[in-house]
């Protein structure tokens, strides 16, 4: 977990220091390429994993339930914060 934290934080420092250079313009493209590669290999590791392939429907259902819970929870909190702190009078 520490190495993960350090990776992100050192990235933030590098990004901040280089924020005025042309380099940061290429970061998002580079990021997309890395993500594409990793997602492709995630697909491969799912494809060779019989357990995941056989249970795909129930895995999808679990994912759906977790999405509904997390999203609705965040919507309710957003409503509360909006009403208390952001809504202007008469809006």
């Amino acid at each position: 977990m520490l190495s993960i934290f350090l990776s992100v934080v050192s990235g933030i420092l590098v990004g901040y220091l280089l924020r005025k250079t042309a380099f940061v313009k290429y970061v998002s493209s580079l990021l997309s390429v890395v993500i594409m590669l990793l997602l492709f290999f995630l697909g491969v590791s799912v494809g060779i994993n019989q357990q995941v392939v056989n249970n795909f429907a129930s895995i999808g259902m679990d994912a759906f339930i977790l999405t509904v819970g997390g999203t609705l929870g965040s919507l309710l909190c957003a409503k509360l914060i909006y009403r208390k702190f952001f809504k202007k009078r008469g809006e």
Partner: protein
Amino acid sequence: MKQSLLYLLLFATGVVLALAGMMPEALLDSAISKWVLYLLLLLVGIQIGSGKNLFTALKRYGARIMLVPLGTTVGTFGGVALVSLLLPERSLTECMSVGAGFAYYSLSSILITEFRGAELGTIALLANIMREFSVLILAPWMVKKFGMLAPISAGGATTMDTTLPIITKYAGSEYVVIALFHGMIIDFSVPLWVTFFLSL
């Protein structure tokens, strides 16, 4: 949305090629994937650090802008903890790590696969894609029922890129700064929360 579909397509191509037996298992060298993962995290950090809007947003809204990512985090974890009762075969911490993706499906699924295997990684991929798509599709309904901050909270880590246009459209351009700020904070927190829950 185009990019999300491309990502999904690449994932599906990987699945199909592996099912067809065209991918030798040796390709999945975990030492390499760990280094690529750190590269990914470094790049995520660079993107956060080079963003200009962090301090502008703080100046304009003051401390109350912190309430938005806080609400997203508390609400998500509360909701996930509640529905995890419906999933007795999955542990609370596993459910929380999936929720901690905050719609950042690429990063969260890759991290979770690395630490907990492809099954939970796939759940994270699907759950967090669904979360992003829910904003793309339901943003007008969210604004109507839950107020202007709703699509920002639901969008999680994506509010600084993929869901920003739709938030601007339905919540209005005065919420752009909040959405950018929120996206950066949540972005930063995703790898930390995910590894935190998986280490419990």
